[in-house]
C-alpha cells in the first residue's frame, strides 16, 4: 500500500493552471504541482496580484483549474456538485476582506452556514454560535452589522463563520493584511492552536493554508512555505529554506517595508 492510499492529500494540484477570479479567461498561475497533507500548515506568499486568492479559491473548489487537475479530499473539483457537498464542507475559507453578509449581524453571519446546512432555527443554532463568538472574543459585537465593525473584528467574524461547521482544512486569504501587531499575535497564536488541535474541535489537528504578502510574521519551524512568482508556484519547504533562498521574490517578501522618503 503506498503513502497516498494511507494518507491521501487534502489538496492535490497536478499541472494545474489557475484562472483569475474576476476574469476566468486569464491565467494567473501555470503548472502548479502541490500536495497539502493532513495536519500541515502551509504559508503561500506572493506579491499583490500574484494569484494568491485565486490559488486558494481553486483549492476550495470555487474556481475550476483552466488546465490540469485539482483534488480536494480525493474529489476532483471539476465534479463538485450537490453530491459532493459533504466534501466541500470539510473546507473552510476565510476571504481577504472577510466578505461578511452586510445585511446580517455578526451572530447571524456566523449562524447562517450552520442553520442552512443542518436546517436549524435561530434558537437551535444559538448555543454553538455563542460559544464560538465567546472563543473569538466577539460576544460584545454579536448584534452589530459588519459595517459597524473595525477591520480586526470583521476578520475574526469571518474566521468564526468559516469555523462554525468545524472544517478539516482551513484556507485563509491574507489574514494578517491590515491588522495591527497585537491582532497579528492573537491570530497567529489562535491558528497555531487550531493546527495543533483545539479543544472546541475535539482536539483534532486542523490542516491550514494561509496566503500572505509578507513572510516574516509567519516564521515558525513547523510550517511549510511556498512562493508565487511570475505565474509559477515554488515550494520552498521549511523556514530554513525560506531564509536560505536566493530568489529575489523571496528576498522581497522577507524584507522590511521601505520607509517613504520625501
Amino acid at each position: 500500500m503506498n503513502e497516498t492510499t494511507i494518507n491521501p492529500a487534502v489538496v492535490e494540484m497536478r499541472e494545474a493552471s489557475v484562472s483569475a477570479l474576476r476574469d476566468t479567461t486569464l491565467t494567473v498561475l501555470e503548472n502548479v504541482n502541490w500536495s497539502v497533507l493532513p495536519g500541515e500548515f502551509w504559508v503561500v506568499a506572493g506579491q499583490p496580484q500574484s494569484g494568491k486568492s485565486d490559488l486558494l479559491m481553486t483549492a476550495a473548489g470555487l474556481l475550476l483549474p483552466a488546465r490540469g487537475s485539482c483534488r480536494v479530499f480525493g474529489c476532483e473539483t471539476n465534479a463538485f456538485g450537490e453530491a459532493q457537498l459533504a466534501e466541500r464542507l470539510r473546507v473552510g475559507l476565510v476571504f481577504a476582506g472577510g466578505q461578511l453578509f452586510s445585511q446580517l449581524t455578526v451572530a447571524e453571519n456566523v449562524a447562517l452556514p450552520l442553520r442552512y446546512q443542518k436546517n436549524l432555527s435561530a434558537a437551535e443554532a444559538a448555543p454553538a454560535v455563542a460559544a464560538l463568538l465567546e472563543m473569538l472574543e466577539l460576544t460584545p459585537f454579536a448584534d452589530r452589522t459588519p459595517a459597524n465593525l473595525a477591520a480586526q473584528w470583521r476578520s475574526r467574524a469571518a474566521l468564526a463563520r468559516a469555523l462554525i461547521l468545524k472544517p478539516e482544512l482551513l484556507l485563509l486569504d491574507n489574514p494578517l493584511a491590515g491588522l495591527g501587531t497585537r491582532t497579528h499575535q492573537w491570530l497567529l497564536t489562535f491558528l497555531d492552536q487550531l493546527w495543533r488541535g483545539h479543544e472546541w474541535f475535539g482536539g483534532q489537528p486542523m490542516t491550514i493554508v494561509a496566503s500572505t504578502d509578507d513572510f516574516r510574521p509567519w516564521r515558525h519551524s513547523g510550517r511549510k512555505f511556498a512562493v508565487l512568482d511570475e505565474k509559477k508556484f515554488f515550494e520552498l519547504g521549511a523556514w530554513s529554506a525560506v531564509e536560505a533562498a536566493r530568489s529575489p521574490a523571496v528576498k522581497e517578501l522577507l524584507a522590511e517595508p521601505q520607509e517613504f522618503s520625501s
Partner: protein
Amino acid sequence: MRGNLAKTFHLTNLQVFRHAVAPKSYTDLLGRKLFLALLTIQGLGAFALITLGVILKKHRVARSVVQPRIRHEINRAGVALLPMFIFIALALGFLVVGQTVSALAKVGATDYLGSTMVIVIVRELGPLLTAVLVLARVGTANVIELGTARALGEVEALEALGIDPVHYLIVPRVIGMALGIFSLTIYLIIGALASGWVFAFLQDVPLTPGDYFKQIAEALGWLDFALLALKTLAFGFFIAIVTCYHGLAQPLRLEDVSRVAVRAVTQGVIVCVLLDAVFIVLYLVT
C-alpha cells in the same frame, strides 16, 4: 461554480460585446444590438430554468432559513406596498373608472359597463400597473442589493459555505414577488372598481351599487380568474428573474451597479409588455 456560471450565461461574450469599440456603420451597430439581445434572452432563459429547477428540487432544503426569507420577501413585495396600492386604487377609480362609468351613462351605454370594466381594469390595467409599480419599488432594490452583494464578494462567500446562491438569494425573491404581485393586483382591482363607483355616484350617475357590481360579475368568466392568476404570477416570476439575473448572474464592480439597475428596469418593463401581449392573444383565442 464560478467558471460554470460564466459558461452557462455566456457572460464573456456579453461583456466583450458591451465593451467593444462602437462599430462604424449602422447595420453593424444594429447587428451587435440584436446579438446582445439574443445573448440576454439566452441568459435570462437559462437563469429562469435554473431557478425553476432549484425551486422544485430544493423545496425541502434548509426550510428554517429559506421560509423566513420568503415571508420577508412577501412582506416586502406585497404587504409593505399595500398603502401605496390603496392610494393608487383610489386614484385609478376616480380618474379612469369613474369617468368611464359617467361617460357610458351619458350615452346610455351602461349595458356595456361590465365588459368594459373587465377588459380595462381586470384584464389589462390592474395587472400591468401593479407589475410596473412593483418593478419600480422592489425590482430596483433587488438589482441594487444583489449587485452590491456580488461586487462585494458575498456570492463567493455563500458558495464557499456550501450555500446555493440561487436557493438563498433568488428563490425567496421570485416566490415573494410572484405572490406579492398576485395579491396586490386583486386589491388594486377591487379598490379601483369600488372607488370608481363612488366617483360615479358623486357625479349623480343613476347606477346602484347592486347593478354596477352585478354587471361586472356577469361579465367575468372563469377564464378571467384563471388567466388573471396566471398573468400576475408570470409577471412576478419574470420581473424577479430579470432583476435578479442582472444583479447576480454576472461579475460586477460597485460602479456597475447603477447602470445595471437601469438596464434591468428597462428590460423588466419590456418583459411585462411582451407577457401582456401573449395574454392578449390567449384572451382572443379562448
